[in-house]
């Protein structure tokens, strides 16, 4: 049933120009970054050969591409998640889901899975760029996989937060703006703090946890952070929709 809702969500995204536009725009911008990185890689290649333990193509090309991707998607993700629940509420189709023999958690997980599937497609397309380098060189696939995992976890967190804020309102634009505000705050919160390792702002910051992953370093702390982030927002969404049946 979760899959059923997820696939409909995915289909409806591709039925409108929305999904195609997002794929095209991110791909275009990332291609540009990708080529400029390759260019700068060639210009410093000679010096690299003299260095012991020199950074490889993944560090110099793939990691910057993924970092730019995370920033682009920070801006785009709210636009994708804004309509998840608020639009169903506005069109009255939420009634269909609520009067069907399915639970609210199935609806929420279905919606979340739907957007996650879309992000998997998006990440699949992004990963083609660094993978194309395999034609000319050897890649550290482990590092690349860590980076892609980081991007996926980050996008799932965006989606979970967006889903929650979308469940609070019937107006998609309000959902988009508040999601963007929340994500941006969590994104920049690191900068406003001291560099103390156990700083609470650092702990809350998305950037702080995603950067090591994008650069190929998997810390269980970061994985736990994203898991908690996603689960918290999904549970909040379920709670919110349950409460709404009571408050109306």
């Amino acid at each position: 049933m979760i899959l059923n809702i997820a696939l409909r969500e995915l289909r409806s995204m591709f039925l409108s120009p929305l999904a195609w536009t997002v794929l095209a725009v991110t791909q275009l911008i990332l291609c540009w970054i990708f080529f400029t990185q390759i260019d700068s890689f060639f210009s410093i290649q000679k010096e690299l050969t003299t260095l012991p333990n020199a950074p490889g193509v993944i560090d110099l090309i793939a990691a910057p591409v993924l970092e730019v991707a995370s920033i682009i998607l920070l801006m785009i993700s709210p636009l994708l998640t804004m309509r998840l629940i608020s639009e169903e509420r506005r069109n009255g189709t939420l009634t269909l889901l609520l009067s069907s023999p399915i639970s609210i958690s199935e609806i929420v997980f279905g919606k979340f899975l739907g957007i996650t599937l879309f992000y998997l497609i998006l990440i699949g397309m992004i990963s083609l760029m660094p993978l194309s380098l395999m034609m000319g060189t050897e890649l550290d696939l482990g590092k690349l996989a860590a980076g892609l995992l980081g991007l996926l976890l980050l996008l799932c967190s965006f989606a979970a937060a967006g889903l929650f804020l979308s469940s609070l309102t019937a107006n998609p634009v309000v959902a988009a703006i508040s999601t963007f505000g929340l994500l941006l705050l969590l994104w920049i919160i690191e900068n406003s703090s001291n560099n103390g390792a156990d700083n609470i702002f650092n702990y809350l910051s998305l950037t702080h946890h995603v950067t090591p992953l994008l650069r190929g370093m998997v810390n269980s702390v970061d994985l736990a952070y994203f898991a908690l982030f996603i689960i918290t927002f999904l549970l909040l969404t379920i709670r919110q929709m349950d409460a709404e049946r009571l408050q109306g």
Partner: protein
Amino acid sequence: MSLITVNNLVRYYGNHRAVDNISFTLKTGDILGFLGPNGAGKSTTMQMLSGNLAPHEGEIHINGFDLLDDPKRAKAEIGYLPEQPPLYKEMMVDEYLAYCARLHRIEKPRIDNAIKLAKTRCGLMESGHRLIANLSKGYQQRVGIAQAILHSPKVIILDEPTVGLDPNQIREIRDLIVKLGQEHGIILCTHILPEVESVCNRVQIINKGKLVYEADMADLLDERTAGFHEIVLLHPPSINQIYAVADINNVERINDNTFLVHTTNSTAENIVNAAVANNWGLIKLIPHEKTLEQIFVDLTLSDEKRSDKNNAEIES
């Protein structure tokens, strides 16, 4: 066993008691007309029956399953068409119905047949491959009904199903409702009174959250034809002479020439014969029917408005 049992349902919006202690039942073969003025709590009640809103007090059993304790099994027995049909406009009719079928957990091999049956019943056979957004309002309404009957639920709840349709479509939908009523229990929520009169076999009126009237349509018809007649006579006899006519239950003198006569056999035959035989000079004979509309107005017009109306009548 009744399909729906509702006990002491209460629902607040803030401090406002929108639904106040409503209880009723629905049996197979019932087409229950749920009437009330705007804002009386009709839609709120329907939303609670369909599980979209949680009641603050009371309980709802659907085909024996408690809607709060066992929501999945209870909801499986309901087909619900809300005021605004819940349609994904970007989907095709077939696609949409297939999605609804899966939401209602119809087994895979039975989905095709279920869709076909629902489409035939709602006159959508030709529209399977059209985008819902491109359908007219009437056809969208039909898709909404098709969605509600798709999984052949025991109970079908229709919230104003004929709003915005043209007269032909209204007739078709009404015929469809009568046909569905043979196998399902139906709650028809509306404020179009002729619709209730032509379709339903039971009627309930809700006002300010309270159930104020409940009757079988047959009883209502009996009551209606219970024979009140206003007669105007040119040469009025004494009131006792009218009482002497056979089958007269009650006579009331309204003014010199006008009487309100209540006959037991609900016809005015005897009184007319007597008037002719005794040369009372019958000028007017007006049957006074107690229509659903009259009942509705009597029960739902707020007290202030009614006294305003009375005052206006006295002044005029």
